[in-house]
């Protein structure tokens, strides 16, 4: 428990950029559990209980902390930190960047990953508690939506995988409301003798099909 708290404090001090996608407490938990589990696994001279009990204790502590973080905003802020606004109205907040050990190169890299090359295009850039950068551009930098353009578009729905690497996923086919006969007909139209000749077949709720034939030479 002492080590757990110590490592959480250390990770929190390191800043969000080091955390990646995990919350600090989750990262610490994975690090310690991996280590605790490996010790009795490697050394038969150490009873299994010396690994099991600390792991159960850590899982219980994490469970308690997760409940407390949902109940208390202040506690959540202490444990996970708060999101930091690193760009506000196109201006880089150097103090926030320094507080989060975020370098200019890292910020620019994150912005480029989101499709923005210039901080001036960004209204807000927020460094989330899980280390991800959320970028909210100025309204005039956002692509117009169909609603804004007053254009009617067809809702395609969620495409489901019906054939994956030659294997038919009948559950997905049934979920879409089609049967094997319908599928065989669609495959025949596209020159396939059966699902075994298909690498990937996606079907959405409107019946639109994406088909990739299997490369039989591989």
């Amino acid at each position, binding site marked *: 428990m002492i080590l757990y708290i110590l490592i959480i404090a250390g990770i929190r001090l390191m800043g969000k950029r080091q955390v990646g996608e995990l919350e600090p407490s989750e990262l610490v938990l994975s690090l310690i559990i991996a280590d605790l589990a490996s010790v009795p696994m490697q050394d038969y001279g150490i009873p299994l209980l010396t690994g099991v009990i600390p792991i159960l204790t850590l899982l219980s502590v994490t*469970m308690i902390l997760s409940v407390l973080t949902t109940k208390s905003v202040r506690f959540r802020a202490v444990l996970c930190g708060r999101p930091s606004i690193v760009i506000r109205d196109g201006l880089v907040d150097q103090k926030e960047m320094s507080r989060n050990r975020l370098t200019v190169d890292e910020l620019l890299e994150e912005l480029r990953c989101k499709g923005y090359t210039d901080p001036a295009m960004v209204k807000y850039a927020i460094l989330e508690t899980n280390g991800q950068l959320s970028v909210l551009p100025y309204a005039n930098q956002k692509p117009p939506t169909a609603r804004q353009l007053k254009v009617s578009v067809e809702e395609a729905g969620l495409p489901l995988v019906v054939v994956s690497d030659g294997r038919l996923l009948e559950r997905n086919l049934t979920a879409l409301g089609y049967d094997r006969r319908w599928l065989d007909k669609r495959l025949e139209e596209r020159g396939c003798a059966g699902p075994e000749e298909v690498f990937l077949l996606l079907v959405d709720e409107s019946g639109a099909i994406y088909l990739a034939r299997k490369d039989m030479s591989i």
Partner: protein
Amino acid sequence: MKRLWIAAALMAAMLAGSLANAWYAQTLCDGLNRDLELAQTSAQAGKWDRAEELTREVYNTWQDHHFYLHTVMRHSDTDSILRSFRSVLQYLKLEEMDQYAAANADLMAQIELLAEMEQASVVNVL
């Protein structure tokens, strides 16, 4: 809230288990040391047979707790105590007072440390 209570109950159960184990280890080791001390007193009085009988009883008690000791304690510690028992029994057969007293003191210290290791004390935690 259910998750909170499950976690709290699990932690309480583990704490209770650890405290019970600490108490049990202390009681077991105190009993063993008491009999080893009696054996040494008998040996000092020249009653070597009685000393051997008492030590063998302690050894048998130790062996009866083999499963508990191997699941809770470090095997290197319990194995070391087992080796010490064998030495003490050998010195008792030879009726070598100096060697026996030294080996018995070492055995008792090891048993005492084993119980101490299980105690929920600040020293152990730090």
